[in-house]
């Protein structure tokens, strides 16, 4: 046998019966939820041109993408994200569509060893995007959907942190730092690396009160009073606007009745390279990674030739599954209700019976190996099937209850009537 024949590459997984059922179940619920908010689903290609995701601003770092070539030698990638393809669609195929445009999607994305996917190379994202509105109402709507998505998926104990990248950008306006120096600061703040941050700030020439605020930034998270604390300081309009934006979003979420799920983190800066306003992340117990990320990206769509503000989020479905399993939530497992076997004479009746039971929503397996009832009962017991139904003819049907060992004799008429 070839060396790798029975293996799967690193970072990808087979999803087997129970898990797959759970996953589809979550996906269906999310699909329904997104649709109920007016976000219709789109499906974008798994393969895209590299150019879609690359730009001077580095939308997505090239070293995280799976790349290959088409027959003309052009560089292709396995989509590392679905937000960017949605932006592409909105600026091309839907460029005549009136605002706001609402999209949803559920699909697999591919990235090398990505933090967002919980260190998997292939994972499923389920998300929404709303384009064409820059209001706090839009920010709040996607956050409200995100919270309801987590509830719908079955999580109870989770938190959503809200930040605003413009707050930091406003602070930076007051300094004369270069892009590179700002990036270095951002990394330190995002890592809550107090030591490194202080060392770095000592090297920079920044106003003393600003320096103090930037040093405190990693600790500026918690309830809404964080905003009031900071607002009292001397800030420029850009930073104040950012704080006002967060406050409005929090107020709107209070009216949604979802205020208790959210908190503020002004030190949350590094989401995606295309973030421009409110950003947020979701957390729960048992998972060391954020289970959802989202935020505003007002300058992404213009990369595709159309000026358009936008915001959205995506949820890591695999991480949600992991969280549910670790939190030992009640997880429905797919289970066969009955196995039907028959003798030659009862075949037609057996098929009729199967059809009727399936119509009623039961999961029915048909015996394919010749109707040895004893063997079937053993098989049923092992597989956790409730019953074995042996159809000899129209009038002679035996129903074996596997758990109790009881046998009921009945006919097709009674059986289909009684159900």
């Amino acid at each position: 046998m070839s060396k790798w024949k029975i293996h799967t590459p690193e970072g990808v997984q087979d999803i087997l019966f129970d898990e797959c059922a759970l996953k589809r179940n979550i996906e269906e619920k999310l699909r329904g939820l997104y649709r109920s908010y007016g976000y219709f689903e789109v499906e974008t290609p798994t393969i895209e041109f590299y150019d879609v995701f690359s730009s001077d601003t580095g939308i997505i770092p090239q070293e995280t993408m799976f790349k290959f070539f088409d027959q003309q030698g052009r560089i292709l990638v396995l989509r590392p994200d679905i937000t960017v393809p949605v932006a592409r669609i909105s600026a091309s195929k839907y460029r005549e569509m009136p605002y706001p445009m609402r999209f949803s999607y559920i699909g697999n994305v591919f990235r090398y060893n990505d933090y967002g996917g919980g260190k998997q190379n292939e994972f499923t994202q389920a998300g929404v995007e709303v384009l064409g509105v820059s209001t706090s109402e839009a920010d709040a709507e996607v956050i409200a959907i995100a919270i309801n998505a987590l509830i719908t998926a079955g999580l109870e104990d989770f938190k959503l942190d809200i930040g605003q990248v413009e707050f930091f950008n406003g602070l930076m306006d007051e300094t004369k730092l270069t892009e590179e120096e700002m990036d270095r600061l951002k990394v330190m703040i995002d890592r809550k690396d107090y030591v490194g941050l202080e060392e770095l700030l000592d090297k920079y020439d920044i106003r003393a009160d600003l320096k103090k605020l930037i040093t405190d930034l990693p600790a500026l998270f918690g309830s809404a009073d964080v905003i009031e604390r900071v607002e009292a300081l001397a800030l420029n309009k850009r930073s104040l606007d950012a704080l006002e934006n967060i406050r409005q979003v929090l107020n709107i979420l209070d009216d949604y009745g979802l205020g208790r799920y959210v908190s503020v983190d002004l030190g949350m800066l590094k989401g995606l390279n295309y973030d421009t306003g409110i950003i947020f992340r979701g957390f729960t117990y048992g998972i060391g990674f954020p289970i959802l990320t989202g935020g505003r990206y007002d300058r992404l769509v213009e990369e595709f030739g159309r000026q358009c503000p936008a915001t959205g989020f995506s949820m890591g479905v695999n991480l949600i599954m992991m969280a549910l399993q670790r939190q030992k939530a009640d997880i429905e497992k797919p289970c066969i209700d009955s196995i039907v076997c028959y003798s030659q004479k009862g075949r037609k009746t057996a098929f009729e019976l199967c059809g009727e039971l399936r119509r009623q929503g039961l999961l029915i397996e048909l015996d394919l190996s010749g109707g040895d009832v004893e063997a079937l009962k053993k098989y049923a017991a092992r597989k956790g099937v409730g019953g074995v139904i042996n159809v000899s003819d129209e009038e002679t049907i035996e129903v074996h209850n596997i758990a109790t060992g009881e046998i009921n004799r009945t006919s097709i008429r009674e059986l289909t009537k009684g159900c």
Partner: protein
Amino acid sequence: MKYLTIALSKGRLADLSIEMLEDMGVDCSEYRNSSRKLIFTDEKNSIKFFLVKPADVPTYVEYGAADIGIAGKDTLLEEGRHLYEVLNLGFAACKMVLAGPAELQGKLDHLNNKRVATKYPKIAREYFEHKRRESIEVIKLNGSVELAPLVGLSELIVDLVESGRTLKDNGLVVLDTIAEISARVVVNRVSIKMKSDKVNWIIEGLKKQLEAARQK
């Protein structure tokens, strides 16, 4: 009950860390009394802790298998994981340096094709990439890195230096300091939010001890 889990680096760092935890009221008797156990529990405070190889601490914390970790800055730099690095404990202090034969001093820029031997390939690569803007060949070793320039395996080394004695005895000099190293407290990005009360209790407790030690 939700436990707070702490990952400690085996060795000297563990002894120091455990002393600090004990001083702030964490019950470490299970650790003191048993050498076979892998995980030690303080039921009263709902805290668990375990000891792993220093280089593995950031991994446990990134994945959330531990909420908090205590590890050297060297392993944090080398592992480059997504963590919050919240506190400098100050102990186990040393320097990460670029070193080489004395005759290279001031002539580093004239040396084409640099080969760098190190236990820390990532730190070496990033230092040359960002600070010196040069491409290098990294030769990964697992110990006795000072030997490499002496036997012609490499021109330079990147390594931890405490007193500088070993370098000196082998005719090597520090060419540049890459980073100051000491023990740090790291926290998982989710735990800091989901278990903030307990995480803060630990961090504030450690901070207080550092303050007290400084005032002595």
